[in-house]
């Protein structure tokens, strides 16, 4: 590539200019996309006003909208606050949740760079040094070693701890914490158990929990709104009631089936919770669940209680406190309804959050049974509890593996068994399963599009996924052949929606996307019309 790559030593220098500037020719090529050979920059420049207001010296992108400090005093205060937060990350009281993993990661990197090739962002960006998985960890490691450990400044260079801690370093780190989707592909590749995705998580926590710095979409309009209104989408319990009524009408119109969707039914076997974004953007997914569950004769319910109709928990991505608050409230609803268990719909972070992460926060009767919907769907389909005709799904289908469900939970086979049963033209993407690539919308990116961040997430974070999708369908390029990318996760769907639109893949390649339940519903033998509308 010829140009000098910025190293860690440059990280705290020249705060007025961008550490890297990404141009189109740097990016991993996408030969099948027309117009990809343009000279214009893939990421729009911030306006002069935005530049004057927000920190952007990492790569010219502002995801977090960190305000520029007014004066030196403020800078000093922020540096102090950052160091305080870093100390707390390493404390047994303040960060018992992740201390062990953090220490392991800080202590055990031998700079073998095995993780670099694992990272979709690093590779797609044309191997920009700053996006290397261990770059982020190494910056943090050096700051900890130099500024928090006794004698850290002694022979700092010799020991590889040369870094300057100043406001530039911190501002760039804040942005860098939002250039990683926490897919943890790098961690799974690391032979030393060092986890650069975890460093992202911990950094985001530090900024949010100590300094009050977090992207608006995740915090103010995300978890704070969730706690206040009942859902991060802003749906109130009343609005939810209206949505259910609308959904029942839709189902009748589409399937000819008059279904009364169970809401707030006491003592049901299953409390089903969807990502509330489904109700707003992809109502066909909760509708498909309703149709399938009713047909299978399950004893289930939805909840219209505050917090009971929202599976998301944005705290998973940036804040342990917010995470705990939301998780407790979700469990509370299930307890009140006297359900036997919570089943989480097609949402990756919500499933991992409530099933796995929350596990060691819940005690007593809050330790409520919780599981993913995928094994249940597998059971319904593979034990023929409903009648299905695979010929109804006679179009090419590929599967996107949501990181949270597959690599980070080990739920790999149920969705595949279903697709093999009901989609005769199912084909895998490469690589897939636990080796999958993130869609580029992970860790909250799917809902973040402030300033020029959406350019970044579509041209860089989602780049490899676009290539994978095109490759999966390369035997059927004809745009008149309808193709389906199945993504059993709301956030992945949001990112896929934006990617398909951005690269114009629906028009040029006939590629659409949707969830898993829709494909099952589409294969049901006794529906009036096809469930999937292209």
């Amino acid at each position, binding site marked *: 590539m010829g140009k000098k790559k910025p190293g*860690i030593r440059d990280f705290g220098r020249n705060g007025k200019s961008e550490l890297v500037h990404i141009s189109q020719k740097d990016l991993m090529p996408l030969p099948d996309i027309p117009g990809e050979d343009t000279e214009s920059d893939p990421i729009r420049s911030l306006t002069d006003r935005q530049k004057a207001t927000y920190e952007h010296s990492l790569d010219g992108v502002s995801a977090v909208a960190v305000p520029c400090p007014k004066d030196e005093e403020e800078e000093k205060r922020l540096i102090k606050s950052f160091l305080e*937060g870093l100390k*707390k990350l390493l404390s047994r*009281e303040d960060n*018992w949740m*992740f*201390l*062990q*993993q953090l*220490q392991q990661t800080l*202590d*055990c990197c*031998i*700079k*073998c*760079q*095995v993780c670099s090739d694992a990272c979709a962002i690093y590779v797609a960006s044309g191997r920009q040094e700053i996006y290397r998985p261990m770059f982020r960890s190494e910056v943090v490691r050096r700051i900890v070693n130099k500024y928090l450990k006794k004698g850290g400044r002694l*022979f700092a260079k*010799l020991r*590889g*701890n040369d870094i300057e801690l100043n406001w530039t370093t911190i501002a760039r780190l804040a942005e860098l914490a939002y250039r990683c989707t926490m897919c*943890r592909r790098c*961690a*799974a590749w*690391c*032979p030393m*158990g060092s*986890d650069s995705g975890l460093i992202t998580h911990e950094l985001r926590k530090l900024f949010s*929990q*100590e300094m*009050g710095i977090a992207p*608006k979409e995740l915090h*103010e*309009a995300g978890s*704070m709104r969730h*706690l*206040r209104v009942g859902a991060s989408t802003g749906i109130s319990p009343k609005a939810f009631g209206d949505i259910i009524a609308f959904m029942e009408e839709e189902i009748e119109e589409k399937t000819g089936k008059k279904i009364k969707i169970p809401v707030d039914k006491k003592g049901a076997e299953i409390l089903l919770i969807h990502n509330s974004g489904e109700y707003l953007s992809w109502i066909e997914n909760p509708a498909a669940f309703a149709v399938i569950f009713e047909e299978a004769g399950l004893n289930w319910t939805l909840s219209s209680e505050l917090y009971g109709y929202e599976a998301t928990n944005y705290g998973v991505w940036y*804040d342990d*406190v917010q995470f705990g*608050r939301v998780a407790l409230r979700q469990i509370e609803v299930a307890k009140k309804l006297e359900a036997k268990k919570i089943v989480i719909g097609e949402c990756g972070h919500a499933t991992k959050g409530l*099933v796995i*992460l929350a*596990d*060691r*926060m*819940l*005690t*007593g*009767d809050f330790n409520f*049974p919780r*599981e993913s919907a995928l*094994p*249940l769907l597998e059971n319904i389909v593979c034990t023929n509890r409903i009648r299905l005709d695979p010929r109804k799904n006679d179009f090419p289908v590929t599967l996107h593996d949501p990181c949270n469900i597959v690599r*980070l*939970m*080990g*739920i*790999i*086979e149920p969705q595949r068994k279903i697709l093999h049963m009901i989609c005769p033209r199912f084909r895998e993407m490469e690589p897939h399963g*636990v080796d999958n690539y993130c869609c580029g919308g992970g860790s909250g990116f799917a809902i973040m599009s402030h300033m020029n961040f959406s350019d970044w997430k579509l041209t860089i974070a989602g780049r490899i996924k676009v290539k994978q999708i095109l490759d999966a369908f390369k035997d059927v390029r004809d745009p008149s052949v309808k193709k389906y990318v199945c993504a059993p996760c709301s956030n992945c769907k949001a990112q896929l929606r934006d990617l398909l639109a951005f690269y114009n893949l629906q028009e040029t390649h006939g590629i659409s996307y949707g969830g898993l339940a829709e494909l099952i519903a589409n294969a049901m033998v006794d529906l009036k019309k096809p469930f999937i509308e292209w």
Partner: protein
Amino acid sequence: MGGVVAFLFYGSILFCLIGSSIKITGFIKTPLHLKWEYYKGSSVYESIDWWTRAPTGFREKVVTALVDIIFLREYYRRNPQYWFFLYLFHLGIYLLILWHIWLFAASVLPDPEGTRGYGLAWGHGATILACIGTLGILILRITDRELRLYYAPLHYIKWVLMMITLAGGFYAVHVYFGGSIPAVLKYVRAQVTFSDTAQKFHPPPATAAHVLLGSVWLVYLPFSHILRLFFRYYHGLRFDEVPNVPGGIIEKRVKELLGKPVTWAGPHIRSGKSWRETATGLPDEEGKGKAG
């Protein structure tokens, strides 16, 4: 001089033991962490009512960890060239550690002559493997841009020191003891039985140098990542499927941890309360950090 060598050598053993114990106790006492695993294959979460299923067995965990640690499996998969030298080095070092243990054991056996042939081949063979590994790693770390990046100067010094240590051992056995295993065993026997204090306080320079370098590594061990690697939450990362069951040991520990104070200063967190209270409370109740 000799006294200093003996003092440093035994001191370093003591230091290593105490230092390692402190470190390991620290690792063991680290609080229970939230589950944060990744999987390389299907897990219990693929089952309906997964909490009723048995988590991955202890044997499987141990076998996986051992294969990873002994054969460095992940390196083999991801960077075979680097793995080759890394593996030679590790194999050599593992064999050398066993060889030293054997030396101590065999030195007190009555018939040192019987060990002549294989003892020498074992020691030299292991040293050569470790040397090739060290050299290969050093060369790759210098010539390969990826492997050079971010690698601290101190680590290069360490590899050179390793080379010197290995060469020193080879020299001591081959030149000083004339390649005679019985002579080495006799020397070791004098050391472990404390029978020849004259030799201990006036050690031959070749063995003194080797012993001193060995001491440096013993002192380094508690500070290195090696201990943590063996005590890594490996099983936690790969197989943390054990559910927190009501009334169980995990729940007991979680209850304690939830009582710890939160001192985070973010505007949506009121510090000073326990984790339990903080999570139960709402940010708005605290009158701060109103959502926009």
